[in-house]
């Protein structure tokens, strides 16, 4: 793309400055550039595993979001006479011990698990990127203070933190999102900060400073877009981590409360009767594991696509 020879584009040096009074350029004449994002996307498209993971992940999302509308059962409708039955034509995934349809429960549990994963990741992303970029850019004492605060939060045991929050504000699903987001942003902040520290020495940041841009503009326009690559990768890998955390919290009874379900809750219920009703564990666990696999493969693919230098060829 760069092999346009210099002379083709350049004017004759000896000639005086061209005096173009009217310099309107028709939109169609412009050569459209290819951004680094576009390049990364085309590299990602070549990675079959990553694309397959993306497709499967999207299918799982559709399955969980649209699915419940298509199934003639309600996730909380009990049929105690039926009890736990294996997969059948009426109940594809079988029913649980209270006679609830497992298919619809898996779908709705997936909704909650995915939502926790996404919302908490977005929360951690917003806080972590802005906090880390500010600390890294300002440097010096501000940086030291801000990062010591992060260390402090790191030292706080996560479960105690969540229990404290639950005691203070009562149990709610949204509070859990906040709690997980509050913990996950710490590593995000560290990654962004180290990225910014490296970028800060680059000449284009010096150029931005010497043009007199405000701190805010330099951080938002010049630094953050350039650390977004690793951030996206970490975010993709944070989603499954958060979903695991949610499952862990639900297991402790601090997360999603019955009769609502998440994959974590369903797996917990399933493992209690694993030997008698194995399908109760199998179906939610299958979807949970599949989602985690997809996101991890997608994260790997994104890392290779966004940073081709690190990719093995």
């Amino acid at each position, binding site marked *: *793309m*760069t092999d*346009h020879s*210099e002379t083709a*584009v*350049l*004017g004759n*040096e*000896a000639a*005086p*400055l*061209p005096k*173009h009074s*009217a*310099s*309107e*350029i028709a939109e169609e*004449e*412009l*050569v*459209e*550039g*290819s*951004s*680094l994002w576009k390049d990364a996307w085309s590299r990602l498209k070549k990675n079959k595993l990553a694309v397959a993971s993306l497709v499967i992940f999207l299918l799982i999302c559709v399955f969980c979001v649209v699915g419940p509308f298509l199934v003639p059962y309600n996730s909380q409708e009990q049929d105690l006479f039926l009890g736990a039955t294996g997969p059948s034509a009426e109940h594809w995934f079988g029913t649980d011990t209270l006679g609830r349809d497992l298919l619809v429960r898996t779908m709705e549990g997936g909704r909650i698990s995915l939502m926790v994963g996404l919302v908490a990741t977005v929360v951690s992303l917003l806080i972590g990127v802005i906090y880390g970029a500010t600390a890294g850019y300002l440097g010096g004492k501000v940086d030291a203070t801000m990062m010591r605060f992060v260390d402090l939060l790191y030292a706080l045991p996560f479960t105690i933190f969540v229990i404290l929050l639950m005691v203070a504000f009562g149990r709610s699903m949204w509070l859990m999102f906040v709690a997980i987001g509050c913990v996950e942003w710490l590593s995000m902040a560290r990654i962004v900060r180290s990225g910014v520290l490296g970028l800060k020495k*680059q*000449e*284009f940041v*010096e*150029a*931005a*400073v*010497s*043009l*007199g*841009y*405000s701190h805010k503009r330099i951080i938002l*326009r*010049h630094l953050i*877009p*350039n650390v977004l690559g690793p951030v996206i990768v970490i975010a993709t890998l944070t989603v499954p981590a958060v979903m695991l955390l949610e499952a862990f919290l639900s297991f402790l009874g601090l997360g999603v409360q019955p009769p609502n379900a998440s994959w974590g809750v369903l797996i917990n219920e399933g493992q209690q009767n694993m030997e008698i009703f194995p399908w109760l564990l199998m179906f939610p666990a299958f979807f949970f594991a599949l989602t985690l696999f997809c996101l991890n493969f997608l994260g790997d693919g994104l890392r290779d696509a966004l940073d081709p230098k690190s990719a093995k060829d």
Partner: protein
Amino acid sequence: MSEHVEPAVPVDPKNDFLVLDDVHTHFDMGKTLLTRESKGVVKAVDGVTLTVKEGEILGLVGESGCGKSTLSRTVMQLIRPTSGRIFLEGKELSALSDTEIRKERINFQMIFQDPYASLNPRMTVLDTLSEAIRTRHPNVKGDALRSRVAELLRTVGLNPNQMKRYPHEFSGGQRQRVAIARALAPEPKLIIADEPVSALDVSIQSQILNLLKRLTREMGLTMIFISHDLSVVRYIADRIAVMYLGRILELGEASDVVDHPLHIYTRALMSAIPRPDPTSEKTRSRIVLQGDPPSPMNPPEGCNFWPRSPIEHDERMKHEEPVLTEIRPNHFATNCPFCVQAAAETVPA
């Protein structure tokens, strides 16, 4: 810090375009962990006094590590000087607060060494230049802004229909042109070019040099052109300053410095330039300096050139602090008797 010596270069902050008055930029290396002893101070710029006239190109040469880049960043106020004053058009830049300096920055811009690092890889040329233009003209938008960008691109010899491209789609020379356009966008009066061609192919170097020379003349700019390559500086500069270990050793009209160098160091630099003519190249006599430049953390006393001097000298050279003095009309050199006398004795190259 060494004892303050009254500079012999006359400075007039009120009337001169750019004035550096005894500028020092030192970096404190901090203290050791346990004993809290100072790890020392790097004297990157150690008492530079200079004036730059409006409309001229001042070439600043020196080997790597001599403080050229630190000096350029100090003038740019990217690094604040430890002591000394810097005036641009009578306004003391070194006295302004960080907020005040931000508003002044449109008047002095910098062209960086590495065109691969000096452009934001996530922004198109259009975005980069628009942003820079709006530092001086915040209200220009839409088509007017775009036609200004097109104008700038033509000025630096790029085709405006490339404006929606990203830096990685250009060659090194083209990127350096974009970087030049960005430096011109705020309509500055002073441009500091920090080794703008040393990262480029030799064939592209001359194109960029010609472009810079032409732009300076036609737009009435003033430029400080920094390079380690005397042959490049000789081509572009009106006056040349030779820097060594954070100080100026010689300063004068380009033709004087090149053809009748006063200081032995300048002569050594001159004799290191290969000549394109093979017969003359064979007879080229070289002045070979001894050793490496000393550490700027612990610069030698006296004439700081003595540890490398290829000429006979006695103890005086190690103790007497030389001063930049006008030895010939408008031609300054440090008044170290050994360095300058030796130069006068040998026939100029």
